[in-house]
């Protein structure tokens, strides 16, 4: 069982954000996490990525307890995430943002910085990898534009691409489609499909059920910090009782 959480519990000042949450994730494929605001979706991801320390319970990766590991450590173990708000370097180009995420530990030492004058930002293998991701996402035309000049939907896409470019096998996307319309939605969905087809696990939080239906094989439905149901997406979205809870 590659990724799994057991009996996760977290309260914020008396309010239960997560209560006894246990989920076993598949090895690969696309999983959607749905639920109303305050259901605990983001907190779930936050407890995995070292942003929130759970009061109780564990995260296991291949049987190893990784609860409470720092954000950077989790990322280095191959679990990368995006954020609800866009977190990118707005002044830098799309390519540089993606290249930043591509792991190149050899070039990230001070010594390398001192020796490879002007070459280490754009080392060929890193740039090639970044360019591969850019064309995969259909962002070729904007590659050298600063991120801040892109449309909102494209920035959300870049954000997903950056997460993927870390080389992580498990990707957690926090509302990758929020505020994105039309063509933008299609491109992000297409990109997520490509990631899953290359053997990764993509977990995404989403409100738009149409997108969930299109994309997710498995859906986790949360409510008030608990898992209400988990199963194949068609089944979950068919169940009237669940939808009533979701729609309030």
């Amino acid at each position, binding site marked *: 069982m590659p990724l799994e959480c057991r009996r996760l519990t977290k309260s914020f000042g008396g309010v239960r954000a997560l209560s006894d949450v246990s989920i076993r994730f598949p090895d690969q494929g696309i999983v959607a996490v749905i639920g109303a605001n305050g259901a605990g979706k983001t907190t779930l991801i936050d407890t995995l990525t*070292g*942003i929130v*320390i759970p009061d109780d319970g564990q995260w296991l990766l291949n049987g190893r307890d990784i609860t409470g590991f720092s954000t950077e450590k989790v990322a280095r173990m191959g679990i990368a995430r995006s954020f609800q708000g866009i977190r990118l370097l707005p002044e830098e180009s799309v390519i540089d943002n993606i290249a930043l995420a591509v792991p190149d530990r050899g070039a990230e030492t001070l010594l390398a910085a001192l020796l490879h004058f002007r070459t280490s930002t754009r080392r060929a293998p890193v740039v090639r990898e970044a360019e591969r991701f850019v064309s995969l996402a259909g962002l070729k035309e904007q590659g050298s534009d600063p991120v801040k000049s892109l449309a909102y939907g494209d920035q959300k896409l870049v954000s997903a691409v950056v997460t993927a470019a870390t080389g992580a096998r498990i990707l957690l996307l926090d509302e990758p489609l929020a505020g994105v319309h039309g063509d933008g939605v299609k491109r992000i969905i297409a990109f997520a499909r490509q990631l899953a087809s290359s053997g990764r696990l993509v977990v995404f939080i989403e409100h738009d059920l149409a997108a969930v239906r299109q994309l997710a094989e498995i859906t986790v439905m949360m409510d008030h910090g608990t898992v209400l149901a988990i199963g194949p997406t068609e089944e979950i979205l068919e169940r009237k009782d669940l939808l009533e809870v979701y729609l309030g």
Partner: protein
Amino acid sequence: MWHQLLINGLIAGSALGLLAASFAIIYQTARFFHFAHASIYTLAAYLTYLFSRTLGLPFVVSIAASVSLTALAGWLLYVTTYLPIARRNASSTSLLLVSLGLMVALQNIIAMAFGSELKTLPYQPVGRAISIGSALITWVQITSIACSLATLVVLAALLRFTRIGLSLRSVADNAELALIIGVEPYKVTAFAFALGSALAGVSSVLASFDTGLTPTMGFNALLMAVVAVVIGGVGSIPGALLGGLGIGMIRNLAVAAIPTAWIDSLVFVILIGFLLLRPHGMLGEAPARR
């Protein structure tokens, strides 16, 4: 010996606690480290010196006048310098830098005006002292502790029971929320500068009876106060008081164990120790990770 050290610690600690609390009040609302507070502190002592020694005014009048002027000076610093810079969306690092520049400039202006040599404030009842256990305590020292305590009581009452105290706390908790309930943060912050500067003034006058005046007195005192604020818990006024008292005590008790010259280094080690082991201090809340 121990009694004496304890009492000295209490005296130094109460003055330091007062300064730390004054620094914390400003920090809570302004959200940057106001290093020029050091010069405000120094200014109060020199103004008292000017009024009492040079102009020969009665003591109480001199102290009252210099504390009021100090409050005015703190308010002016905020309104004329920090506020316009903060309004341009400057980071807390730029404000910190500005405060450092102000500190250096003011400290040197004071040095130019009054000279760099040590000065003392005169006080009449020099000879009289009472003994508690094996310790001697002078009336000046007793007055000093009493003044610190009285100031703290007034401060606590002000923060707890008055309208302005409430606004101050609401801005400290959440500036945006304060704005919603109709409190204008910049006005409250300006008030915090005046209040904090007045408290620093009291602390400065009390300390300068004990140790005399030099233009660099503020720098040394403020550094101790900042350490007190950090170990007490940034953002907590009772924490700052407690931290100040603690540092004052440690500095005086350590005299028995290590050479005086190394006490500042000891305080620095305590600071680093707290940053490593308990960065939120004694009374501060553990910082939530983003």
